[in-house]
């Protein structure tokens, strides 16, 4: 076995894809360094109320994975940690070996030098550990904290203390402190902590690791609502995004799981879903994010369960429900008070009486409608994190910003970093990515 194959894998991002890739590789016998920018693992999936099509809570899936993480001595989980520098390790041996013609044409990877298949020397930056491992998650700090910040877990829809558990069931179970929000000179949490776990003077720290291959599982962020002002995004309070709807429906959300209009806190009597809001659109995201159709159908079922009298209209261009998801589409489409209407909404404006007016052509009847709704959900798509930040490895990206594997440089992408897809597909993809990363280290 060549020595580099014994080097650990680096997995960047501890969402469902990253965690899956990490435990799969570890269970195959490889050491793994799993790096996560946030203070806990889980990523985007934990912000969902339920998964489609089975409508089970995402915590089940994540619980299994965190148990696998805990049980796996081969995975080193580093939260609040980012990759700041990476250089391809140059190896004297086999450096002159010719690159196979196929790889040379398929990817311009040779820029990284002749050490094809060689490992990476990576600088990791640990963000300041204001709350140390001594934290017992007792909550005494949160009770005394005078500063309030918008809760990032709830997408800013509620306020939380600057020091807090980032979300229920966070793993590692450790509090986090938004240091920038601290009032000058305040030490309330330090004084309150019985475990002495708070260090207001903590500093960044760097660490260098040698890894055999890298898996980027950096995931996505929701397309910003503010970029859709013509649909009321960022302008009208009762126009929300699909990811916000997940938080409204979730028991751990800002409303304790009650679907209420942001403007007046009342349950909506009419809800409209606007599909492809900023997706499949050259002015926004040109691609289909693959999950929004099913996500909206799922959210219709949240409404049905919670507010059975509420009328729901879903405006779509195409109804994309491949495979077994077709059943969910049929089920939702047959519900009383639910209409699926073919036509992309062009405008959302304020109507009289606090309602919203949607302008849309009902393509099947060929008539222009002004439809009324109390709450409008924009089915916004996924922006790959790699589009903004290719990481210091300079991942190759397609025209939409999704990453591409570069096996000969030991760079692999997993989950939504590769393509927009649902959770199940992301997990499958991550398993494959783990296999590719295991092989990439052994190439030469």
């Amino acid at each position: 076995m060549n020595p580099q194959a014994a080097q650990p894998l680096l997995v960047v991002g501890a969402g469902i894809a990253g965690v899956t890739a990490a435990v799969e590789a570890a269970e195959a016998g490889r050491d793994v360094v799993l790096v996560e920018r946030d203070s806990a693992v889980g990523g985007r999936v934990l912000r969902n109320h339920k998964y489609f099509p089975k409508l089970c809570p995402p915590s089940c899936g994540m619980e299994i994975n965190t148990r696998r993480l805990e049980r796996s001595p081969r995975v080193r989980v580093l939260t609040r940690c980012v990759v700041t520098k990476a250089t391809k390790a140059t190896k004297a041996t086999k450096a002159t070996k010719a690159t196979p013609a196929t790889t040379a044409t398929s990817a311009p990877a040779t820029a990284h030098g002749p050490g094809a298949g060689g490992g990476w020397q990576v600088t990791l930056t640990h963000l300041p550990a204001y709350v140390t491992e001594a934290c017992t998650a007792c909550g005494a700090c949160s009770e005394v904290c005078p500063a309030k910040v918008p809760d990032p877990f709830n997408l800013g829809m509620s306020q939380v203390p600057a020091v807090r558990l980032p979300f229920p069931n966070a793993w590692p179970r450790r509090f986090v402190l938004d240091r920038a929000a601290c009032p000058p000179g305040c030490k309330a949490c330090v004084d309150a902590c019985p475990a002495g776990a708070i260090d207001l003077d903590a500093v960044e720290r760097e660490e260098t690791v040698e890894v055999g291959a890298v898996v980027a599982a950096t995931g996505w962020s929701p397309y910003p609502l503010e970029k859709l002002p013509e649909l009321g995004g960022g302008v009208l309070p009762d126009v929300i995004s699909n990811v916000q709807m997940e938080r409204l429906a979730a028991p751990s959300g800002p409303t304790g799981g009650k679907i209420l209009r942001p403007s007046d806190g009342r349950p909506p009597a009419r809800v409209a879903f606007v599909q492809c809001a900023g997706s499949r659109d050259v002015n926004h995201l040109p691609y289909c994010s693959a999950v929004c159709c099913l996500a909206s159908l799922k959210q219709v079922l949240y409404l049905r369960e919670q507010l059975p009298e509420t009328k729901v209209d879903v405006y779509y261009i195409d109804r994309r429900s491949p495979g077994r998801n077709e059943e969910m589409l049929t089920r939702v489409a047959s519900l009383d008070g639910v209409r699926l209407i073919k036509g992309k909404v062009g405008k959302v404006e304020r109507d009289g009486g606090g309602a919203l007016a949607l302008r849309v052509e009902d393509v099947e009847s060929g008539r222009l409608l002004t439809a009324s709704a109390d709450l409008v959900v924009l089915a916004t798509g996924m922006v790959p994190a790699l589009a903004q930040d290719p990481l210091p490895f300079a991942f190759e990206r397609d025209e939409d910003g999704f990453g591409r594997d570069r096996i000969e440089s030991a760079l692999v992408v997993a989950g939504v970093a590769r393509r927009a897809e649902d959770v199940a597909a992301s997990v499958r993809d991550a398993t494959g990515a783990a296999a590719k990363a295991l092989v990439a280290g052994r190439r030469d």
Partner: protein
Amino acid sequence: MASVPLVLPSPAFRRELARRGGATASRCYQCATCSAVCELAPSDAPFPRRQMLSAQWGLAENLAADPAVWLCHQCNDCSLRCPRDARPGDVLQAVRSVLVERLAFPAFLGRFVARAATTAPLLLLLPVLFWAALLAATSHLTFPSTLTAFEEVVPHALIYAVFFPVAAWVVLASWVSGRRLWALWGAATPRSGSFWQSLLPVAAEIAGHKRFRSCHAAHPRFTGHLLLFWGFVGAAVTSGLLIVGIYVQGLAMPLALSHPYKILGNLSAVLLVVGGVLLVAGRLSGSNGPGTSTAFDTYFLTVVSLVILTGVLSEVGRLFLSPAFAVSLYIVHLGVVLNLFLTLPYSKFAHLFYRSLAMVHQRMAAPPDAAAPPAGRDRLQET
């Protein structure tokens, strides 16, 4: 057994559209954003989503029988928001350009003007040469050293001898083409009520550019177009008044600058100049809003600009510059005005006629109890 509707796509029509700037129709995926953002689309027959489908399939008959093609004012609000950059505004302009040619009477003149990209030099030159030749043949082609009125060189009788028949011809050609279009629309949608009663409110709408005003993306073109429109109306009225002035009132030319007819004429010229400059400057600086210019647009704008330019310069030349220069320009002016007249039914100018007709049809086709188009959007019925 029920008959299966037969759809006859025409690849030739698709190619024709593509040649005139409508190739982007093939990108359309029928999401209907365009219809939803159009301020002019009536709720019972929204456009341009359906027209895009017809353009994409090459369904020429559908488009010919569809007044919506003309109700579109090319604001390009749709093109701005189109998620596929299929540019419905440009596609409908290409459709109109093809229809103008196909409706043309006689057909060869339609073809000649439709190929303005190559025939423009001939189109522009021939009428000027015609005037030069006519003046030479009637021994009027002289360049005097002093000039008080153009009539000293070009007698009014000669002008009217040319323009009366030409105007009659234009009316006839437009009438034949308009009849064809009117019949196509009528076959697709029955009309009721009086043509003339419907024409009046349409004229009022056009006078204030009511629909154009509601376009968002085309707003930079609004003022220029309105001024140009009223400039042309003013010039036409002035011409009519002058005929009365010369032959009924026996007025001597040139009229004093303070004469009401002269004031009206010069005011019209100012409107034309300001409107023309606004439109051309916007076109050149790219600030006219979205939309791509084709030969159809450029040729028309060129002719209009030349009419204004030569008209104003020959008056300025007569008053302040050399008589020879003024007379030369005046002859060119007569030529381009002749061009404007002769190509009216075959150039973009035809939109004035066809669009007005479509607006009349829209009123007559609306059910008697319907709200005046394009107001009154549907409320989705609660189930």
